[in-house]
């Protein structure tokens, strides 16, 4: 088992009222799964993803990741944990405009104490694998949306994470670009990477092995 959420609650206080963002979430994810989280706007999809990704905290409940209880860990341990095992893919790619494709790929490695030569090898490997060697010296603004997201996925994968979290990875892409990215996810999943994606599209959800539906912070 990769991760397990037990009775997770998350809320904000607004005007003396408690507004629940997540309510009593229970979820188990096995290694090798491909899960799609679906639901209308404001149902808590992204919040759930961020909680799983440890970018955001929660107010009640238990979260175990690879037999470590995340809710009791110190900030530093937590960040070490997700640094090592989790990769993120964002809807609006979030590549750094001032860096080239190659440098964007290298960036996560800088925070993981790899040697210069190792980093070079890993970046070259990734460029090769995603067939973007020719674009390595271009800046994000010089790429199409699909190509940018390709780089985004490559960046998420570069440190060989066990889990990829993707928040509407195809939200800004046209249909053929979407298809390309989803095919890529499917292939990665077959290679053993666990994937959790947030999506609006039934078509994308169909790539996954399991669908979780959320409404007003509750799993239904």
């Amino acid at each position: 088992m990769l991760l397990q959420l037990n009775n997770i609650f998350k809320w904000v206080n607004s005007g003396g009222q408690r507004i629940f963002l997540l309510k009593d979430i229970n979820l188990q994810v096995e290694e090798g799964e491909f899960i799609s989280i679906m639901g209308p706007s404001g149902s808590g999809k992204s919040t759930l993803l961020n909680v799983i990704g440890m970018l955001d905290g929660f107010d009640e409940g238990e979260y175990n990741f690879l037999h470590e209880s995340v809710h009791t860990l110190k900030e530093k341990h937590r960040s070490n944990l997700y640094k090592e095992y989790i990769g993120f893919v964002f809807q609006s790619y979030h590549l750094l405009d001032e860096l080239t494709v190659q440098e964007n790929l290298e960036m996560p490695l800088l925070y993981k104490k790899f040697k210069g030569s190792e980093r070079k090898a890993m970046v070259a490997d990734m460029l090769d694998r995603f067939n973007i060697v020719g674009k390595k010296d271009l800046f994000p603004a010089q790429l199409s949306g699909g190509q940018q997201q390709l780089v985004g996925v490559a960046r998420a994968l570069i440190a060989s994470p066990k889990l990829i979290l993707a928040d509407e990875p195809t939200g800004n892409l046209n249909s053929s670009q979407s298809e390309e990215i989803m095919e890529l996810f499917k292939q990665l999943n077959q290679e053993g990477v666990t994937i959790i994606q947030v999506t609006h599209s039934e078509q994308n959800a169909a790539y996954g092995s399991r669908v979780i539906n959320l409404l007003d912070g509750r799993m239904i």
Partner: protein
Amino acid sequence: MLKHNLLLYLRSIKKHKSSFLINLVGLSTGLACVLLVYLWVADELDKDKFHENDEQLYQVRRNVPIGQGAIGTFSSNSSLMLTALQEEVPEVEMATAVFEIDNKVRLETEEKKLTAIGNMASEDFFKVFSFPLISGDKHTVLSDVSSVVISSELATNFFGQDLDPIGKTLSIKVGEENIDAVFTITGVFEIPKNSSEKFDFLLPYKTFLKHRDPDNIAWYSNSSSVYALLVPKTDINAFNQKMADFVAKRNKYLKGEQVLFTKYSNNYLRGRYENGKQSGGRITYVILFSIVALFVLAIACINFMNLSTARASRRLKEVGVKKAVGANRKSLIFQFLSEALLLSFFSLICACLVVGLLMPWFNTLTGKELNFVLEGEIILSIVLITLLTGLIAGSYPALYLTKFKAVKVLKGKIETSFGELFVRKGLVIFQFCISILLIVAVSVIYMQLDYIQSKNLGFNKDNVLVFDRQDALINTMEVFLEEARQLPGVVSTSYMQGGMTNFSNSSRGHTWPGQSEEDKEITFRHAHVGPEFIETMGIAMKEGRSYINEQPDNDSKIILNETAVKVMGLKNPIGTVINMRGPNREIIGVVKDFNIQSVYNEIAPMALLCRTEWVSNLVVKIKAGEEKTAIAGLTKLYAKFNPGLDFDFRFLDNQYQLLYLAEQRVATLSKYFAGMAILISCLGLFGLAAFTAERRRKEISIRKVLGQSTSQVTIMLSSEFVKLVLISILITIPIAYLLATDWLSQFAYKISLHAGYFLGAGIVALLVAILTVGSQAIRAGNKNPISALREE
């Protein structure tokens, strides 16, 4: 990682050139100011510190009651002080006396004649002070009555570089002291650059004593400076207490006089005394300019902080992404700090270039010979200053930008908090407070200087030539003046002891009818002057007559100034016989008060005596418009009396201006500093305004769509900043008023402050701010609203 961050930084500079330039210009200017002031301050602090015995080296001063409860501090001492200290005071290890010759002295070899500045110093001079001797033995160079020690510069001028001057002879005439003899060179010294005293030669003090009228070798005759090396670790306060009545107990007329030992190397920076106590001096300006330079740098740092945090949105995505891929806060803080450091080192390079270019200009401005050489200590200091600048400027943005959570940043949910706005506005207010303060300072200093120079001095300083009584003129002064009076363009001629800018000779213990016991303490200034002196200087008579057609060396007459008559309490002064500088003098006239020192001091009681003795200067009044003819005639006449000597004259009004050189330099320097402060502040404001316009683009568009006009938008945007400047004005005015009052209090004659100075400065700051912000606001107001709304 470093390479990666560097790359990121360089590319973002390329992309956002304007904020980079604003920061670079601001920080370089700030650093350049600090560097210039650093060089200046280091030089000032180093003055006179080269003497090996600096810690033990003291000057002997006297605190003397000068009437009406006031105490004057004098550095002149009796020549008897030297031997008394040497023989009777165990705490004094060694002492030396120096008599300063007022005028330039003429020195001659058979081939060459030169004029130079010289002193007469007692034997231990080179042991007490550490002026390096290139040749000669420091124990004996001044032992012989006919020896002379000259500076290496003078030696070169006389004998060239190669010739050894030791044993050569110079004939020297000192008019004041009736010295006219041949002296043998026994030593050559050098004056280090950081010495506040400059002199070209030294004669033995014995010579001075030999030629002095024995009547004037007494405790009441103060002519020499006396310096002493105290035994190491002497408790100076206890010692001063012990020595206080040293002079008073030796002469009954001198009771009330207190001896005071002050550290010699403090003279330069802390040389001003008020009522017997040390009170500032140049140190005030050293501190003042250090603070001002730091303020200018602070203003530049504030620009950096404000622009970095205001434009945070640009960098927040980077922070978010980096945090999401695993960067911790520490590494991000490190990244932002190193960017700030990099910028400050770029600025340092620019600042060094600027300082290098400005050095000659700065030297003329400050009257110094500073060198900007990058070596050991300077490098260390400027690197430290730069590091500190970078850290201070970078710390706030670094802490601010990295505190956000990745999720929030990436979703663009960052709101500017109240606290953040408060800090930013507070910093802008601080910048403008300093700018306004500097503008007020500049205007007050300028107005006061103007006032001093146009003030009615009680004498007419225009068209008066002053030149030394030297060489042949020592004996033929009166013949010369008689002939000069006949020249075309010459109005009148006379002579005087000392200069119009400083009548320093003083005495007390005088008696007059109706004098009370305590009035015996009153100190009077006095000067020996020639007939027609009062007319030549255009001094007004209050009553009686002047010395016109008077026989010189007349021992039975005296003229007083108004203040003297007032403090003496004489009802009908004319015809009264008093004892002052000699018995039974009849007061023949009273002159209206005229300034006898700088306007720092109130006019003191003064007596004018008609005598030729000790006269050092000749004065000639010439007709306005006929200066050329008069000077040409005088030059010819001078050459007749003094063949081979240049007619070296000064205009009295120029001399008078020199008196306020320090104030003029301060005025010019503060003018530039104020200019820089306001420039950098406005740069910052410009950047902030541009940013605000950008941030509120959507709001402005919506307002315009709903019908607000361009001018309304402009006013709305400008008013935000105008408010800040108004607050700064309100905060600054009371502070500026207090500081200005404090500065002016050192002048006896000063301008009265009125609201105009403060409001004027505020209006200048406000106008500059409105112009800066207005241009940005108009640009924002004129934009097509649709383009902004479509982007959203």
